[in-house]
């Protein structure tokens, strides 16, 4: 899978490349609109991460051109502006997602995975890890071909972990992904422990190996 990152902040693009390469994505970087255009003309990308404010113009211009050329495969806008107008404009122009800065790399990775699944496989994906299989279109989890009853939150949690497999995901990232803006209303991270505990118990009871590991209370990791 090939990803193009159009982002002028060098350190941030380096971080994204570093994180995404571990997911076996191959990443290209463009620091401005001109470089972005050149890369898009020369190569095919499965997903483009596009910053709106670039030194030589507005990233939305690239989005418009892609749409006109019918080359729009998967595109996620990453913006420091977090303005509703930008978001609506971007999504109307055909962007698949909008992620305001600052974001968690794990969140970015999960969104990229979702976009690629939707674009490439029309959402019909079954993720398999030995005895565990996750059917994304049916929102079903099977352990040893036996269906496993999970709540909505538990399913989302599992999917988030799986989207960042073999990565440590911080508690904050999990909290935000699970409850959105409401994350700050929790006094502590007890609710994550509760959901995580239930998920692990259900998986273990169904005979699944212990893939989910807690990393020093800092976060969790789905290790396969």
């Amino acid at each position, binding site marked *: 899978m090939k990803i193009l990152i159009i982002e002028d*902040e060098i*350190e*941030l693009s380096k*971080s*994204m490349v*570093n*994180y995404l390469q*571990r997911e076996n994505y191959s990443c290209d970087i463009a620091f401005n609109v001109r470089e972005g255009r050149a890369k898009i003309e020369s190569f095919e990308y499965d997903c483009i991460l596009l910053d709106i404010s670039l030194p030589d113009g507005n990233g939305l211009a690239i989005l418009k051109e892609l749409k006109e050329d019918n080359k729009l495969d998967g595109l996620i806008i990453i913006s*420091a*502006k*977090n*303005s*509703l107008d930008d978001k609506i404009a971007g999504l109307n122009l055909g962007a698949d997602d909008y992620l305001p*800065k*600052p*974001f*968690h*790399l*794990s969140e970015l990775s999960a969104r990229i995975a979702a976009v690629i699944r939707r674009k490439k496989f029309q959402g019909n994906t079954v993720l398999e890890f030995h005895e565990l299989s996750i059917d994304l279109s049916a929102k079903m989890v099977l352990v040893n071909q036996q269906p496993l009853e999970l709540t909505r*939150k538990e399913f989302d949690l599992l999917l988030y972990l799986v989207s960042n497999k073999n*990565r*440590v995901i*911080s*508690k*904050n*990232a999990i909290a*935000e992904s699970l*409850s959105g*803006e*409401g994350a*700050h*209303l*929790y*006094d502590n991270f*007890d*609710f994550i422990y*509760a959901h995580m505990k239930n998920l692990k118990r259900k998986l273990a009871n169904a005979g699944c190996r212990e893939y989910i590991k807690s*990393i*020093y*209370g*800092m*976060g969790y990791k789905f290790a396969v």
Partner: protein
Amino acid sequence: MKLLQKTIRLYLLYSVFILLVTIPVFYYVIQNIIRESVDEDLLSRKTALQENITARLRLQPGDSLVFLDQDLELQSSLIREPFDSFSTEELFDVREKEMIPHRFLRANFLVNGQPYLMQLRTSLLETDDLVRSLVKVQALLLLLLLGGLIIINRHLSKWIWKPFYHTLGKLREFNIEKEPGIELPSSPVTEFNLLNEAVTDLTGRAHQSFTLQKEFTENASHEMQTPLAVLQSKLELLMQTSPLNQEQAGLIDALADAAVRMTRLNKSLLLLTKIENNQFPDKEELMLTQMLEEFSTLYQAQVQQKHLALEFFFQHEVVLIANKVLIEILLSNLFGNAIRHNRENGRIETHLSENKLLIRNSGVNHSLDADKLFHRFQKESTDSNSIGLGLEMSKKICALYGYHLSYQFENNLHEFILDFSAGALPKQ
């Protein structure tokens, strides 16, 4: 009290004082002047008569003389010393049928060694009338003067003070967020010109510093986003490094928490600036009951985590015309506070009546400082997840739509009351 009334009142007091003091003084002064002239008149008559009488007595000596003039009497006297004495006495006047004051001059003199007393008198009736008339005229003049002063004050002053009231009106309407300063016309009065110049200067500078402050917050928050994104991403990469021990993990965890808090604070500041800049112009009809029910499902997990009893009392549907995002922020701030600042096994009551939303929750057992509550970074709790901007934001949103947000503490419950009655309501 108006400045105008105050001056008029002072004028009135002074004028009444002057009237009360001057009328008697004036009366006595005039009376004395007239008395003096009457006395002089009597004396000159006496001098003329004395020669005449002396001549007659020399020809026709006797005890007394009879004159046709009733005001003149002459009789022999026992005192040999010559003297002149004046006195005022009341005599009964047959014509006027009342006692009338008279001025008497009694002159003692010797004719051929024989002492005589001459008595001259003159009625003071005329002079008293004159004095009274004069006093009346003076009183009338003073009253006219006073009345004139009041009328001039009332009408002319209004006209003179007009530029002042104009300036005052402009100042009252001044909106620091929108107007770059107040422009005022020049006035022919120096003081008002000085005032207007000062007002124009001051409002201009106030607006400028307000804009600068707003821009600073906006720019600072914006510029902070990218370094924050870098910080957060590097921390996440640091988490992936191995080997990682417990101590390092603890440090990274603490840093990640701080980064998240900073992010949240920054987002809130940006949002606050956007509300101030009125960057949420779209409005739609919003059903409050529906939105509140959505919140209760949205925050179900948080409510369950604290074992809170959640109660809704919907007596009346409230439909607002407002921006959905802003009303969601407003409700989630109030609702969120009710959850966050609650205690274990506490409760939250939500009452919705006509034009009023009341959210009541248990929490600390003392009232919060209602004056400070709605200001930036006034935190009542030590909860690090609370950033102290929520209520200020709520207040700003309310101000935008003319709602009124207030706080009170009753029966150990904290109440936030949202009154929509002054806001724009949908057509019935």
